């Protein structure tokens, strides 16, 4: 082996792979039956499904009383879910004690919310700026006028009568929309080089984060009136809104701060070296990247907030879960599966909203990925 000289005469072209690399059979062989232990696990999994699915089907569908059924059907032995109970009380679950002749007002607000939030969430739809202004400025004002009334000949409906899904959505939408900007401001404040701003933000975050939400809601409902001049009362719903928003913003601040710490010093320096002012550096360079890094954390907080709205029963608001709990005791639908059906319904509604948020956040993560990960 003395001759080590070699010069390639022609380049080797790309060849197709030897075996098919896709298709259901390949997928199964790879994922289900790759090794004996994989095969065993596959069969254990199938057995588990066979054990759990039939009774579940029987309860939810097979032996269940469909919507529109009667209470007598729900009272037979070994009955499944009593969907008739849900369909008969659905109005209360959605609107609470809101007067039924005024439901249209709530429906308009729901429709506006959907019509504004869906195009805002879809990146391809144009007119984002107008859409955002409508959503942030016009929509809240219109909603307050429509929901509480008292002007333009609309009947006044006090917030005590609001309830159900409507309250859950109001608190979570307001909480989500306010806690993110508030959290960002707190996060920036915590990073500030100005000692007073920094200590105020640190104190706020650490105080609120270290206290249970229930305590904050209690304090909002019992202590807030003590500080108010006599005669001035703060609306219950407003108290709940303030409590939930402040609580959530403290968490949000820490999530955002985590994202900002993931941004390398070079980005701050490059932005500064171009002569961008502090707010422009943050707004154009740091925050867009930081927020993108922490989308999972932000949505985590949003989901937690959405579910925490069920704690507003503390201040006497009837949110979706509380509305369901109230009706679960209703004697006219008393039946073996009344309560469990109610809870399944509430869980399903909560799950639907939270799961949508989760999916949307994954979509945004993929969309915002500009392939810069090194």
């Amino acid at each position: 082996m003395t001759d080590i000289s070699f010069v390639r005469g022609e380049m080797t072209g790309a060849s197709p792979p030897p075996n098919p690399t896709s298709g259901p059979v390949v997928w199964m062989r790879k994922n289900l039956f790759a090794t004996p232990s994989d095969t065993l696990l596959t069969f254990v999994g199938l057995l588990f499904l066979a054990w759990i699915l039939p009774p579940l089907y029987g309860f939810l569908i097979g032996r269940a009383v469909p919507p529109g059924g009667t209470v007598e059907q729900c009272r037979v032995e070994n009955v499944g879910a009593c969907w008739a109970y849900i369909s008969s009380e659905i109005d209360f679950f959605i609107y609470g004690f809101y007067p039924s002749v005024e439901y249209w007002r709530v429906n308009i607000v729901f429709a506006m919310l959907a019509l504004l939030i869906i195009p805002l969430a879809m990146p391809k739809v144009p007119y984002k700026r107008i859409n955002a202004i409508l959503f942030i400025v016009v929509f809240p004002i219109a909603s307050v006028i429509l929901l509480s009334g008292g002007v333009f000949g609309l009947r006044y409906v006090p917030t005590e009568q609001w309830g159900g899904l409507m309250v859950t959505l109001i608190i979570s939408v307001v909480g989500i929309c306010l806690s993110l900007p508030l959290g960002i401001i707190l996060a920036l404040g915590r990073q500030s080089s100005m000692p007073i701003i920094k200590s105020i933000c640190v104190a706020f975050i650490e105080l609120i984060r270290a206290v249970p939400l229930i305590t904050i809601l209690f304090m909002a409902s019992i202590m807030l009136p003590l500080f108010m001049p006599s005669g001035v009362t703060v609306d219950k719903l407003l108290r709940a809104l303030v409590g939930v928003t402040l609580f959530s913003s403290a968490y949000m601040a820490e999530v955002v701060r985590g994202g900002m710490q993931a941004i390398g010093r070079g980005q701050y320096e490059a932005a500064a070296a171009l002569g961008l002012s502090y707010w422009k550096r943050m707004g154009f360079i740091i925050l867009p990247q930081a927020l993108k890094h922490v989308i999972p954390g932000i949505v985590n907080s949003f989901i937690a907030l959405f579910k925490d709205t069920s704690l507003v029963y503390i201040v006497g608001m009837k949110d979706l879960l509380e509305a369901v709990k109230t009706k679960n005791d209703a004697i006219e639908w008393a039946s073996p599966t009344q309560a469990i059906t109610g809870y399944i319904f509430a869980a399903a509604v909560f799950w639907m909203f939270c799961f949508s948020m989760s999916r949307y956040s994954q979509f945004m993560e993929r969309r915002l990925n500009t392939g810069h990960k090194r």
Partner: protein
Amino acid sequence: MSIETEPTAGQPVTRSKMQISKTDVAIDVIGMNKWYADFHVLRDIDLKVMRGERIVIAGPSGSGKSTLIRCINRLEEHQQGQIIVNGTELTNDLKRIDEVRREVGMVFQHFNLFPHLTILQNLTLAPIWVRGIPKAEAEATAMHYLNRVKIPEQALKFPGQLSGGQQQRVAIARSLCMQPKIMLFDEPTSALDPEMVKEVLEVMISLAEEGMTMICVTHEMGFARQVANRVIFMDQGQIIEQNEPEQFFSNPQHERTKLFLSQILH
């Protein structure tokens, strides 16, 4: 690692435009000292850079050369002495700092492009939001400089899709879009693959030929020889020696300089 970069064949460096002003001081550093806590990083730095000068700062790592140029646009704060850039003294006054930064471009070792913005957006952001230039005009300027660094076709891509050399050329173009009076280069080729060093150096050489006032911290001694009118050697936070490149390389005076040169020029 190519330490020596031969002047590109057929493109002799035109020194005609490279006029150095005798009266117009671009940067004046007077008795400047800087500490990181107890550590004295820069000691009694005196440096006067005239308009049109092309200065290369060399020295072992940790000698304070990067820190020095980062003080010139206040990415680092100095504790003693004066730094006057384009007639503006750098103090804690944020207005003055932004004023200086607008006129001083900086190119970093790791490019520091904004990964969430396209190349074009990277180039137009500061002109639009700092200088208040209309978007169309800023984009035209950006395309001009992208042409100049020979990658106009990458304008709509994201930085992550470009090679290191391309990213660094974009970074240079980004600084140029602000039409700075002074350019600072902080080891612009140190993070590049050897094959890409040349394309970045070519851009820097052409900038020098146009008479840009430049300070480059670099280990590219070939570049220093070719374009610098002054080479500064730093060690332990001090300027040890400075001279014209020819004298500096052929006839170093200080022992430390001799040792350094013997280690990098084989």
